[in-house]
């Protein structure tokens, strides 16, 4: 019983990072099945601050515009000003834990920022960068 009491908090502590590692690994495998090659965290980082001017934008858009350049800090919605919780899993363990959530935001935010949906290669590069934060 005493061992159990020690193990349970340990599991809780490591369980969350393990969960998102699994989720991200599964997603990366899926992207590769869709034709993506090896993923590069550096490319993901470059694209993070890259500026886009999709049709209808009145100023240059980038991921950092709302989420900030430092992923460990709270971001701010470009239009409404609503605070956005940090994306870095190291400070916000809720991130990268739910595959459907990840895909939803890729779809929504790539469309707004870049003007089209992201390719499996781009998504894989992003996740490779994000999971290290």
């Amino acid at each position, binding site marked *: 019983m005493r061992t159990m009491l020690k193990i349970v908090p340990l599991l809780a502590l490591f369980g969350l990072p393990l969960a998102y590692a699994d989720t991200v690994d599964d997603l990366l495998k899926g992207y590769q099945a869709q034709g993506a090659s090896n993923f590069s965290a550096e490319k993901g980082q470059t694209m993070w601050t890259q500026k886009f001017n999709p049709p*209808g934008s009145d100023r240059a858009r980038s991921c950092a515009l709302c989420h900030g350049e430092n992923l460990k800090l709270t971001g701010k*919605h470009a*239009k*409404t*000003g*609503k605070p956005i919780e940090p994306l870095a899993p190291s400070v916000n363990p809720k991130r990268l834990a739910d595959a459907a959530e990840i895909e*939803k935001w890729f*779809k*929504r935010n790539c*469309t*707004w920022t870049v003007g089209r949906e992201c390719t499996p290669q781009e998504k894989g590069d992003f996740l490779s960068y994000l999971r290290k934060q």
Partner: protein
Amino acid sequence: MNATGNKVRVWDLPTRLFHWLLVAMFALAWWSAGHPQQLDVHLFAGYTIATLLIFRVVWGLVGSWHARFRSFAYGPKRVVSYLRDLFGPRTLHPVGHNPAGSWAIFAMLALLLAITLSGLVVLGGEEGHGPLAGAVTLETGIGWHEPHEALAWAMLLLVLVHLLGVAVESLLHRDNLVAAMISGNKRVAGAQPAIANHRGIAGFMAVVWLSATVIAALPWLRADEKHPYQPFKGATLPDNATWRSECGSCHQAYHPQLLPARSWRLLLAQQDDHFGESLGLDAATLAELMKFHVDNAADHPMMEAAWYVTHSLKPNETPLRITETPYWRKTHAAIPESLWRDPRVNGRGNCAACHSDAEQNTFTDSAMHLPRQN
């Protein structure tokens, strides 16, 4: 009669305290009316007036002679003859209320009763508070709002008539009625019944009123800009986790109660162009959001703001923004552009900057606090 004669007590202390507290509370109620943030001040005045009325009715039955209803219950003939003889050579001059004045007193008491009762109906219906909360519908509460105000105007008119009467009698009879209501004494010729001052009862009234004032003022003294005092909570509106997470991740989760169903249908049908963004919601999520919004839209109001939003719109108007509704425009017209641009506010979509119950979406009158501007 008049400047000669003995000085005797006419008004006992509780009657005088009643009179001047009523004057102060009616002024306070008038001043705080129409200022949503001061609703609790208005209610303090209103409840005090109601309590004073109850006291006055009891005192009219058991109080000292000139305070008793029986002593100034005059028929209409006496009023007419009093008014006819007013400017002629006088033979009769009542020590207490004169026949014309007594009718004004009874009318004011009846009006105050009607004002406090209608106020409780408005409070119960519009805000869901007070003894009639739950017993009165939103429609009834809103319907009684204007009659409540009209009755208050009628009361103000009667107060003016009363003041005019006081001025006329004071001048004609050389009898300072205002001073008499302060000191309690009048100069009266001939023998008069002795009237006790009832200091104990007056002291009790003062202690009760002062304690009530301190208790009502304490939360205001404790509040600051970061922790505003919110004396009233609104009704609990239907909630939905999908609505909170999906709508609430980019902007405040605006409750379905804030727009009619036709607006929500159009808004959600255009999810590919949601004010320039594509929401990309899957069919199941979209269907759940649609149901929650249509079921709880402003067409079936559960709070005051929803009723006014609905009734400010023409049937052919389908606004996609809450800020486009006539009711929103009207209620926010006085807010200066500089406040919208203030970084603490950051635009018209951030209700929570001023409405401390924006999270609950109830937008009660008392939860509104404009940030101070330099």
